[in-house]
């Protein structure tokens, strides 16, 4: 019988496949690589940065402004022209207004109809591209885990790095049907929360010894292992572990990952563009995550996740020193600097950048203060840039109050499908759940977002 992807995988359990992994690329079965790549087109994007604006960044206060509406709808901010005709954005995003030719604003991708739409938990869909709920649905993996499974970067780099908590408010997201094999490596950039700088971040710094000494010790492991290898045929289980150990040792031996995360090596004038000092709020550390993401991309990491809070603006933001204003200023600085830097380094074309939150905000402000709005699931914005995305445009349109999509509505799945497409990964690739149920990377039958291709 013809050996096409589906029939080949059908009768073999997920684990059986993974156990064979040693024979292939880091636990990735050969058939899966072939299937994923054979159907994908020649990609331009090879790497990706996913900036998650945790909370719901308000569409009508940022990238979908409605200045003609009454104050309670249009909010306290005024639009300014961007360098793309027809795109006006928030006055507090001046730097992004000057580089709008480098990104595309999607106004019509919504989670409408998804479980938990309009709530923080909708992050389960936005980060997986599938209708995942807290319970009762398959535990779809995050984009980064899928990419980590199907792609690998340099041997001394992890395939998937995350800064901040990948789950943020979408609880349980870390659990997914791929198992822990494709979990991100968590690294943290100077977080205030002492728990987050705990061992997890230290794990990439050789403990108590110089890297050269580490290399020598690693050799002892290798030669002892070789001794016992002569005793029995190394099965796929062991050779799989050997490959992972090789990668782990390479990461520890090589200074590249640590250097990528050593932000003080960045020339001051470049680094400062990412940083924002807000009076009374101190330095916003999330912006350094974006700088670190750029450095990780330069070092070859296939997928970088940046948790960039905090956009849960129920309580009013428009005072100069509030957290909300800091987030606006931080995003303006970090995202514009990122796009510029990637461009200058010739990496923008091969690096897909996405920035989005888990929902939008209500058309009308609540009474808690300026720009205070509550959760809204029917409308929000997403930013896409680089990686072959046709930049400098606006996709879709919303109604007069940015409440509902009026034109070119796309589901979250379309965004996911488009992202995989740009990365040259066939969104119809089938992976197997713990129940051994075959599931496509994007399970819904949705169109690509043609406008950005």
């Amino acid at each position, binding site marked *: 019988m013809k050996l096409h992807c589906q029939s080949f995988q059908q009768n073999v359990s997920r684990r059986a496949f993974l*156990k064979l992994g040693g024979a292939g690329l880091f636990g990735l079965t050969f058939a899966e690589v072939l299937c994923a790549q054979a159907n994908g087109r020649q990609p331009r994007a090879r790497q990706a940065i996913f900036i998650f604006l945790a909370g719901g960044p308000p569409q009508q206060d940022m990238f979908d402004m409605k200045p003609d509406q009454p104050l309670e709808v249009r909010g306290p901010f005024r639009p300014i022209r961007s360098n793309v005709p027809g795109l006006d954005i928030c006055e507090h995003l001046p730097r992004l207004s000057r580089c709008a030719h480098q990104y595309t604003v999607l106004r019509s991708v919504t989670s409408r109809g998804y479980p938990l739409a309009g709530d923080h938990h909708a992050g389960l869909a936005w980060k997986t591209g599938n209708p995942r709920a807290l319970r009762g649905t398959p535990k779809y993996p995050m984009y980064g885990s899928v990419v980590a499974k199907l792609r690998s970067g340099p041997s001394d780099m992890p395939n998937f790095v995350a800064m901040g908590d990948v789950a943020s408010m979408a609880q349980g997201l870390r659990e997914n049907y791929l198992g822990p094999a494709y979990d991100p*490596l968590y690294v943290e950039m100077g977080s205030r929360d002492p728990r987050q700088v705990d061992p997890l971040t230290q*794990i990439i710094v050789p403990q108590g010894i110089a890297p050269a000494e580490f290399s020598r010790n690693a050799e002892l492991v290798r030669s002892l*292992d070789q001794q016992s290898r002569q005793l*029995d045929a190394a099965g796929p289980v062991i050779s799989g572990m050997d490959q992972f150990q090789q*990668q782990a040792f390479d990461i520890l031996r090589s200074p590249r990952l640590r250097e990528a995360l050593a932000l003080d090596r960045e020339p001051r004038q470049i680094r400062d563009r990412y940083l924002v000092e807000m009076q009374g709020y101190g330095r916003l550390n999330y912006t350094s995550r974006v700088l670190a993401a750029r450095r990780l991309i330069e070092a070859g990491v296939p997928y970088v996740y940046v948790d960039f809070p905090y956009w849960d603006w129920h309580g009013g933001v428009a005072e100069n020193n509030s957290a909300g204003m800091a987030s606006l200023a931080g995003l303006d600085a970090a995202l514009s600097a990122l796009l510029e830097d990637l461009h200058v380094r010739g990496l923008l074309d091969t690096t897909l950048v996405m920035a989005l939150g888990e929902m939008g905000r209500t058309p009308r402000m609540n009474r808690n203060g300026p720009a205070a709005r509550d959760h809204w699931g029917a409308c929000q914005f997403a930013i896409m840039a680089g990686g072959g995305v046709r930049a400098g445009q606006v996709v879709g349109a919303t109604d007069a109050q940015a409440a509902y999509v009026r034109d070119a509505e796309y589901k979250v799945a379309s965004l996911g499908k488009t992202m995989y497409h740009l990365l040259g990964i066939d969104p119809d690739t089938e992976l197997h759940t713990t*129940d051994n149920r075959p599931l496509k990377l994007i399970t819904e*039958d949705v169109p690509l977002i043609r406008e950005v291709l």
Partner: protein
Amino acid sequence: MRRVLFVFLAVLSMTVASNSRVRAQTPTEPLFSRHVVPVFSKLGCNSGGCHGMVQGRGGLRLSLFGADPSLDHERLLKEVAGRRVNVLEPDASLFLLKAAGQVPHEGGQRTALGSSDYQILRNWVTAGAKLDPVAKSNVKRMVVTPASQTAKPKDRIALKAQVEFVDGSTEDVTNLCFFEVGNREVADVDVHGNVEVLGVGDTSIIVRYPGQVGMATLVVTPAKAAANFPVVQEHNFIDKHVLNRLKVLDVHPSELCDDATFLRRVTLDVSGALPTADEVRAFLVDTKADKRSRKIDELLSRPRHAALWATRFMDILRVTGFTPGTFPPNTYEEYRAYEWLRSRLLENVAYDDMVERILTATSRDGRSLDEWAAEAAADMKDEINRQQPKTYSARKSLDVFWKRRMTTDVDHAIRVGHAFLGLRLQCAQCHRHPNDVWPQEDLLNFANFFMRVPHFTTMAGPRNKADAEVVAALKTKAKDLPAKGLQAIPKHFGDREIFVIKNKDLAEKTKKAGSSFFSSGAKSTGFATVTSPLGTQSSRQMRFLGDSEAVTANDDPVDRRAFVMTWMRRPENPFFAKAIVNRVWAHYLGRGIIDPPDDLSPLNPPSHPELLQELSAGFIENKYDLRWLHRTILNSRTYQQSSMTNASNRHDRRNFASFAIRRLSAEVLLDAYNQVAGVDVLFGKDRVPPAMPSGISLLEGASIFYRGDSSTTFALNTFGRPERDVEVVCDCERDDQATMLQALYLANHPQARKKISASEGQLARILQRHASMDQRITEIFLATVSRPPTPNEMKITQTHVQKAVSPQVGCEILLWSLLNSNDFIFNR
């Protein structure tokens, strides 16, 4: 009854054009239900990834796996202005153009112009594209011949599939079936059922026709008879079966493993710990012939053996999810269940009794309200005083099992099926799984045994008089609780009682209780109901899985779960004993006799049926004695084989010709790490949850370890501890993959690294006790990999250690290296 006229076409351009070995014929007047829908299934059109998706694909929606031919017919003919089917010009029918790739089709070309599949579809259109009476085409049975066959490589076998429809007619449907080989190293099959034998071994071949699935099995023996099969000593009947199969296949078994390997292997497998250096030494110098058997008996009586299997049963029973929506979940209930299980396993309660006490659990265990309230109050005191749940673990039945989410009706039937019968019934909620035998009806009929076990899913407090009495009783018995505990009783009592309700009260009670009282299904009828995107189904019958007769039960106050228990205890029950026997086997041998071990589908045949049969029969004869089962397997030569392979068994996985190497599981590996380092889990910043005794090992407590942010949690998750998510129906949730993060953890996690050089640790003790470097090296080897170093290893190590700045650092490096070596990470 309309007789279907088949004109058998001997010579037609299309059959010539396609495979010349086509055997079955193409009907000129195909029926939609018998021929067209099967072709859709065979070509994958109605699969879950294509048009069989709930929302269809590319605008066309077909019923999943062709479950509803009438609906498919209607959609095919009436939608898109009838363009899909063109009776006047059949070749211009859109569905044919798409299937043959004549016009762009997202699913690609599925069949060739002129192929027999194409011709069936085309002939149906030519004949008017009619819908036949669908009910007549329901399949009564399918016969696949030859059902089992022994063959040699390069043989060719023609499979034939015959179906009998409910109207009595029969038909050769070979050409309409989908064939799938289980083990592709052994054979290949083409679309016409022609099997090509490739290599030595055995395999099943699944044959699918809509609504039916059949199977053929194939054993392939070598072309030349075995000449030099080694003479090996059988230890018990297990070896007889395993060796018989190996002889047939001419695959030579590996040697018996050496004593040091055996000791490490069996100590890890039975007690989840490493042997100490002293134990290794003592075992190696023991010269008695029965030393392995004695060691096995000794290990089986260790408390850690009970802890290991309590952990396994926690995985199998999936004891989590008590307070929906709260994170972290209520871990105290988990700890109760764990301790209850551990106590039963320590007592070595017969497996069937243990299951009965789980499956038919009620909170009162047949006692009065007063007696029960006294126990519950004492148990609450344990909890509040942060002691171990000793009151709870002395209870007769495990009512916590029924306090989880999803423990009523159909949901629970699925979970019982998986936990105690090794069946995966979840697909039957929506549709019949293409590779399994359970229609929705079977699931619903089984679920009806579980429909009357109420339990509260809210903490809303008492709702009626009976509830108020329960609360009052609890309050009386618990009056010496601190005020806070007393206040909590009305709020939490709902989580505390599981009982069985009388049938006639069911409707009344559900109505009163409202939506929060029962989980879905039971609300309206009190009978099993499933609702899925594919529709709603309900049944009022009670029937055991695989039985053809329904069970009649007149009623109250019988706990119908007890019927299930009686059925499970029937010696001829096809699943109950086999499920646990196969799981225990898989634990020790790395793969089930039926594999995956929790998939006892009739279509997933065992590799050694006679072995599974004899082992299960022996288990039942020995009164479901788990230790007998463990002991029998462990004493077999098969378990005690070396993992070193020979030229003939290098590629064998299915026949147990050598020992299957595997990674240590999360708790065992991390405990072993701590054991080697000589520190306990409380080392440094780690902490155990307040209810746990300090110094407890992970295996003895991991079941309830707080799932928040700590390095222990990180380590457990990294090494694949399962979440035990109630919704996951698969043993594979415990992840045994190797990952980069695991390697990184062992190499460089600060916490792990610090343990190595801990001043109170094992290394410090070795350095103090032994002055010579050689002795130190030997001790470190014994502690980590449970054997002395080989001369070569000694040499390599000495050279390396000498380069270190101090003997202490040298020894640290050695210990670190061994903890990162395959010999430590794997059980071999």
